[in-house]
């Protein structure tokens, strides 16, 4: 056996040089920085083609356009961080709009009451997903596929086609503004505030940790059931909030509208740097991803592309944007293997 006097505190390896540390810092954040650069590049092109892109108005409009997706994607982000996926938000969003449009009536009190109930329903439904996934050890994909169908069906039972109505005060909130900022922008600020708080809470850390390495998280004392209840419960809550916001934009209950947000919510998160294998990324990336998806639509509009070419253009822009980030991400990994 070997004998050496230990020399505590002295590390064997050379300390990394300053540029190397910088690079490490950048690489750690590459998955967020790159979508940011992508968004800036898109904005630069877009801004050169349309007047007033760099004004508050543009921010207000784009945020309003992206907010439902942002809310839906917030829940999805939390689930993806955990290493899962939630398809049921599609059903929950539909159901939420339908309940709102049939129950709100005209009174402020009933509106408030039912809003709270819808959010609670989202939580309960999400927690049910979480419980099924944990207790029966089922794949999130399958469980939420099934609950998506059940929720969407319930929405169709309540309201077979788009309809119902929302109080005018409720609608006014959706299109209102304060201090020059539209209410969706304020919502976004709240959302980010929530995120910066939540990701630092023990639960937030545990969700990310569980996605990063489930076994380690368990060995460290994380309860799999508790974590899944939180994760999917929050996803349900955000789906419900997305539904509520959506009604301020549509003024109606829409029993089939939710499915339109399932894939985009995942796409926004993935563009924003979240890995489907869990543990990496955050809401800021997702928000940027949602803006990117929205701006691509605006860009295709101002490019005045003939109608059949429009899907091609948005597909190509999306690929170019993501390709850049993927290549950078890949080379960063390669250097550190």
């Amino acid at each position, binding site marked *: 056996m070997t004998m050496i006097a230990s020399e505590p*505190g002295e590390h064997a390896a*050379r300390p990394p040089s300053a540029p190397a540390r910088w690079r490490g810092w950048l690489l750690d954040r590459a998955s967020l920085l790159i979508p940011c650069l992508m968004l800036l590049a898109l904005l630069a092109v877009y801004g050169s083609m349309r007047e007033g892109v760099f004004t508050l108005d543009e921010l207000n409009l784009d945020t309003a356009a992206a907010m439902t997706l942002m809310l839906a994607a917030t829940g999805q982000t939390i689930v993806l961080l955990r290493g899962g996926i939630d398809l049921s938000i599609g059903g929950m969003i539909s159901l939420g709009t339908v309940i709102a449009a049939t129950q709100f009536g005209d009174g402020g009190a009933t509106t408030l009451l039912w809003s709270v109930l819808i959010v609670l329903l989202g939580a309960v439904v999400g927690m049910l997903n979480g419980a099924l996934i944990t207790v029966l050890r089922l794949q999130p994909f399958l469980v939420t596929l099934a609950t998506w169908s059940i929720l969407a069906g319930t929405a169709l039972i309540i309201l077979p086609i788009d309809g119902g109505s929302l109080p005018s005060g409720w609608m006014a909130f959706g299109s209102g503004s304060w201090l020059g900022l539209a209410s969706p922008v304020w919502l976004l600020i709240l959302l980010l505030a929530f995120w910066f708080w939540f990701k630092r*809470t023990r639960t937030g*850390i545990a969700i990310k940790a569980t*996605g990063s390495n489930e076994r380690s998280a368990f060995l460290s004392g994380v309860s799999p059931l508790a974590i899944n209840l939180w994760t999917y419960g929050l996803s349900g809550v955000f789906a419900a909030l997305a539904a509520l916001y959506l009604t301020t934009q549509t003024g109606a209950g829409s029993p089939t509208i939710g499915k339109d947000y399932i894939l985009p919510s995942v796409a926004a998160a993935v563009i924003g740097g979240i890995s489907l294998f869990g543990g990496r990324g955050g809401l800021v990336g997702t928000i940027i991803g949602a803006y990117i998806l929205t701006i691509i639509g605006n860009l295709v509009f101002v490019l005045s592309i003939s109608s059949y070419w429009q899907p091609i253009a948005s597909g190509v822009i999306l690929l170019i944007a993501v390709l850049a980030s993927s290549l950078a991400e890949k080379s960063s990994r390669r250097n550190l293997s």
Partner: protein
Amino acid sequence: MPDFLEALSVAKRYGGIVALSDATLKARSGEVHALLGENGAGKSTFIQILAGAVRADSGSITLGGERFAVRNPEEAQRLGVAAVFQELSLIPDLTVAENIFFRREPLSPLRTARAGAMREATAELFARYRFPAIRPDQELRRLTLAERQVVEIAKALARDPRVLILDEATSALAPRETEWLLGLSRDLAAEGKLVIYISHRLGEVRRIADRVTVFRNGATVAAYDTASVDDDTIIADMLGRQMERLYPERRNTTTGRIALSVKGLSVENRLADLDLDLREGEVLGVAGLQGHGQRELFQALFGAARASGAIEVWGKPRTIRSPRDALSGRDGLALVPEDRRNHGLLLAKSVRENLTLSVVKRFTRFGLTDPKREAKLVDDMIAQLRIKAGSPEQAAGTLSGGNQQKVIFGKMLLTDARILLLYDPTRGIDVGTKGEIFTLMRDLAARGYAILFYSSDLAELVHVADRVAVLRYGRLAAILEGAENSEHQILRAAMIDTRAA
């Protein structure tokens, strides 16, 4: 003194596999208690039960006289049992400090984790126990295995446990860090804590353990005061047979032919301008303090890290850009990687699939795999390395740590490559098998293989390698041969810049 921890007749089965049948362990506070046994004896299973990660089927456990029946790791931690798991319990995407305080983060009034406080507390903890320096704000995924091992220890200590369990905590550590941990364990015992220490390095055990308990096949077969028993007895208890010798006789089988020649090899700022020749029939040891370029050397040669410089293999220049380039046929290079869980094994796949993953073509006829031929390869390798698995279909991730390592070793042996890059190949392997692996290495060398061999245990280099290349700051500090090849000289070369001297 009454026993603080008393575990009686603990049993645990996984389906048809009996991990523990009758495990008994009694230990006092203030002692370092070693738990020994060959690979798959049930040591890790036993401590996972203590740590609440696994539930026993039967048996009784008391701690401090109270019934100890924990249902999850959290309860165990609350009762003062903290474990350094063999598989590690760290989160790759959290920083070092976040890992150490995971689930016990200091909270602000808003109930958020206080990052600053965690960093400070980490620094304090590191200082108090004289930890090797690791930056608390680094993401864990950026750390080497040895560094992770150290963080795992810090995490356990941060809970200020009454019982600290170290499951092969030194297996990935270099000599200096190992020393530190041995000292630390003694200090903790002196503070009145119970340290349960699992290791396959008997030397370590002898130096720090007050008592030892030996498991074999899931049952306790012996318990001793360390002072009153010799190594041979312990080994015989572990293996159920006498062992002849650990290190094989060393015959020089080196030929004049150069198998692998490296010129000006550089990897980022980790490896600088390295020249090295590995000959046919030779076992060339690689040594150096933790982080001085050993792993980069192995990874670069295997095409797993970007490197510059020239490589010649069996006299021909080669560019190795990927492991696939490296593994090409008889002229190839095969690697036993450092990180077995992330680089070596498909944990969810069977022992069979893992063993043969690199050599599927060997039992493919007319495009179809031949299960009989495959079974033959697999069975032979399982027998040769004494891999303890319920069946070849057992998932590799459910093997004991040492047996996982054996599967990786076997997987490499099955390839045709005659240049073997062995990065700590005996990590976690029991003494009995270790001896067999050393014998095997020398036999392979005699058959014309060329072996590059890194070990975290210097004694292995001294006893098995023909020459030892010592790295310091990513450069070749010395090549030691013959009488020069001693632990003392290796350390000297590793720590003192010979060129400057």
